[in-house]
């Protein structure tokens, strides 16, 4: 899910907490107060991003055998301290839940067409992507 409005963390977590999954691991990315940064503007190629997220989710389920993977990513203007991304993986066992959650956030950052622009005191600058 890619959304303009605040991510409901509790709703996302509760959706994953089922009695068949003993372990839930969540990653929450927060807009960090880097020096000079006042806010963040997030842009997405939404159709392509959702397709890629679906592929990453299927890969995580296939590789680690987790029972569910949920991802929510914000777009639009975000303030410092706001939640930008949430990944929740539920599994019968904790090791797999940790592995799947880390896999999903790494692949998201590497592959999903989303960009961030930092709004600083001196102006705006696009955050440079790592992978090309």
């Amino acid at each position, binding site marked *: 899910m890619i959304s303009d409005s605040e991510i409901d963390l509790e709703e996302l977590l509760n959706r994953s907490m089922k009695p068949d999954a003993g372990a839930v691991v969540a990653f929450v990315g927060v807009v960090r107060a880097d020096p000079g940064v006042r806010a963040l503007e997030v*842009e997405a*190629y939404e159709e*392509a991003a959702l397709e890629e997220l679906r592929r990453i989710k299927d890969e995580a389920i296939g590789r680690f055998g987790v029972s569910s993977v949920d991802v929510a*990513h914000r777009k639009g203007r975000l303030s410092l301290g706001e939640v930008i991304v949430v990944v929740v993986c539920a599994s019968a066992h904790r090791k797999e839940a940790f592995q799947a959650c880390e896999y999903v956030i790494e692949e*998201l*950052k590497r592959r999903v067409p989303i960009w961030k622009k930092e709004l600083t005191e001196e102006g705006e600058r696009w955050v440079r*992507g790592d992978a090309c």
Partner: protein
Amino acid sequence: MRIKIRAFASFREILGREMLVEIESGSRVSDLINHLCKIKPDLRRALFSDTGELRDYFIIMLNRRRLDLPKDLEAAISDNDEVAIFPPVAGG
């Protein structure tokens, strides 16, 4: 034929969010890029170095599949294709 161009992040600031371009049937990705560089000279500076070599700090998707550049510059494009141009991703 008509191609939908979509651009994101720094490339959106050059090309605009979305536009339709008319290009000759049988064109390839490279032809489309040359056409766009004519309309938007800033795009040429973003895609090519001063000596005319293709930079590697951008990605092109054809119908939401990432192209393998420079090899896929020769890929054929068809009427109603969607071509997206953007910098390396930086989400999360």
